[in-house]
């Protein structure tokens, strides 16, 4: 703990640089994420927080500035990171246990070790009995559990989550939040969690990086020093929520103004 795991320094991202349809998605992001920290990237939709996550994933490259992982510039995706998407993106032709073991097969881990690891993860996500089910037969919440297990299976250093609970109903989301809190407490994985839900961010995170409207900067970083388990009725929760919502509302209205301007 206490070591900087991910460090962004003056990161800028432009799409189609030099072309007439150039878009400045991210203007300037400087952010340090400590080893083991759970950090929420919060902001209005279209603000570039997913873009930032994908740059940490190595799928996109910054156009300016540097993005480091363990002090090394990020150069492409790799197995030291695990990723979870809003749309689950499981492999539909493989059963649950095969989906979870994907990264282990890629790494050439022995079958016995794969089985042991899959059993452990199935237990952790509470999907006993569904090992040989195909993803299509599972509910959204169950699919997302499998996706989380798949991302954790090969023991990456960092877990990247792109609005993972965005497509789930309220009850399922509440269960997933408490489960993810538990999983983070046992695995201590450095986690980057993109969301536009203030509630999710406060319930889960050690730190919330609030993104401004596009072109994005980090508007403010909130340290959420509340004990777990957290409830939406806690005084501390309510205080943070009010403060963050005020800050966020400003950005949302800026975004809308921007859209109205460009529409007019």
């Amino acid at each position, binding site marked *: 703990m206490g070591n900087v795991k991910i460090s962004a320094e003056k990161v800028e991202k432009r799409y189609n640089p030099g072309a007439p349809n150039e878009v400045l998605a991210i203007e300037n992001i400087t952010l340090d994420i400590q080893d083991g920290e759970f950090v929420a990237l919060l902001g209005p939709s279209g603000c570039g927080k997913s873009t930032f996550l994908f740059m940490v994933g190595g799928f996109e490259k910054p156009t300016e500035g540097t993005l480091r992982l363990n002090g090394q510039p990020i150069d492409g995706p790799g197995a030291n990171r695990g*990723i979870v*998407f809003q749309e689950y*993106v499981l492999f539909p032709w493989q059963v649950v246990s095969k989906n979870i073991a994907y990264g282990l097969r890629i790494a050439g881990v022995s079958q016995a070790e794969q089985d042991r690891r899959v059993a452990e993860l199935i237990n952790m996500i509470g999907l006993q009995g569904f090992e040989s089910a195909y993803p299509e037969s599972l509910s959204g919440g169950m699919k997302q559990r499998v996706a989380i297990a798949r991302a954790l299976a*090969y023991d990456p250093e960092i877990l990247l989550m792109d609005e993972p609970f965005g497509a789930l109903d309220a009850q399922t989301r509440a269960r997933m939040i408490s489960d993810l809190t538990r999983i983070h407490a046992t695995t201590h994985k450095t986690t980057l969690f993109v969301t536009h839900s203030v509630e999710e961010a406060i319930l889960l995170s050690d730190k919330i990086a609030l993104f401004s409207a596009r072109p994005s900067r980090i508007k403010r970083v909130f340290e959420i020093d509340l004990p777990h388990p957290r409830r939406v009725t806690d005084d501390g929760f309510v205080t943070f929520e009010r403060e963050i919502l005020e800050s966020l509302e400003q950005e949302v209205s800026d975004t809308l103004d921007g859209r109205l301007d460009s529409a007019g």
Partner: protein
Amino acid sequence: MAGLVRGNRYTPFAAILLFGIVWEIAVRVSGINALLMPPPSAVLVRLVDMLGPGRGATPDFLLLRHIGMTLLALLIGFFLAALVSSAVGLIMGMNRAVYAWLNPIISMFMVIPNIAFVPVIILWMGLGLETVIVVVITGSCFPIIYTAAAGVQSVPQRMIWAAQTAGASRRQILTTVLLGATMPYLIAGHKLALGRAWRAVIAGEIFASTTYGVGFMIFDARTFLDSEAMFVGLIVVGLIGVTLERVLFGFVERRTVEKWGVSTAKDV
């Protein structure tokens, strides 16, 4: 009975039976020359007769010899087309430049009726089994190439990202992600191609076959004004064609895409 009328699993058989009855009555009532339009009862008797031992100059199991030759040409041609076209289609789907250059050519070839290639192929290769096989290949390769390429392009970017993040190399992404994700398209493409191949083999045999083959049989029977044999040929072509498309690929689909719950075009 009401279910049969509205449509259940027995309806297809009943519909074909009814079609046969209407045909039989129409021929008998109209008094049309049976040499031009034989009744289905006579065609069926002839069909059974052709399955059995021969008479005089007619060899034993004549119909089975024709069918066997047709299936041989079909399978060799389809197998070669499937092997090469799948690979070409996958490469097209993965490589932008290859796609950009090959797609216009394939789009053009796809709209040419397969039978239009036959005179050219005969000019190059003469008559015989090899010619029929090449006709089958030209008939079935384009749908496979086209759908395989479309399949690869339909794979969600994020599915590839998920694999890359798990440490998969380019080769591993091909074997562990692209093949599985493209499977519904590959199956749909091969199903379509097999239907095309069946039409192609019959057309090819009509022009290029000299000994056996159902297409040859139909064309040859015309020479002797043997309309019963011609209709036997048409019925055989219909029955085997439906079996190949529905039964064979129905089986493959149940074992793969239906089990995975992945939607695919059911009746191409």
